């Protein structure tokens, strides 16, 4: 069973991803690239929030 909290998997893809992709074999690498290119900004945000 696909996790579909928004109820629009068929039209918007898995969790409304940018590419509207449904195939988990494609969605997982997309998630990983987003993660790789977002870690710096995310860690910076945490650093600012913690004031370190």
């Amino acid at each position, binding site marked *: 069973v696909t996790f579909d909290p928004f109820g629009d998997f068929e039209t918007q893809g898995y969790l409304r991803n*940018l*590419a509207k*992709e449904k195939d988990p074999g494609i969605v997982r*690498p997309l998630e990983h690239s987003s*993660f*790789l290119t977002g870690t710096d900004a995310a860690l910076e945000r945490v650093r600012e929030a913690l004031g370190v």
Partner: protein
Amino acid sequence: MFEREENHVRAVNSAVADYILKMAREHHVAAKRSAHDSPAHCIPRSAGDDMRLDEIERLLIALQRSGHLSRIEMVKLLADYLREVKTSSVSARIRKMAEEHGVAYVRTARDALANHITRLAGDDLHLDEIEQLLIALQRSGYLSRVEMVKLQAAYLREARP
């Protein structure tokens, strides 16, 4: 003024698209919808063709409407553009884009950390050479994260049997 179009040209990496954008910029011509566009879209849609023009195709229409291109020139440029974009594979375009900008992927300590986190979350993923070039292009500022994800999706779809 041409931000969307510039992003599009970067994403498709087409010389013809670049030429069209330069022409539009030179003549200060922006894509605008006319009152006739809505019914003109409805007709093919009702006939079963839901056509949507991209940024470059809309610029071509605008250049023709403003008298900078004849209809024949517009159609020829459109054909050149479509041929270039559709016949070159996504991987070839990504490789070319990286080459043109002199960009290569360099693995960072953060990447190692991110890979460990992904692995510990149960996904043992390894990006291939093309996907790594996309990461490098995004980090060098040649692609936004959204463009990168869309290009990666196009590449993966193309690579699948």
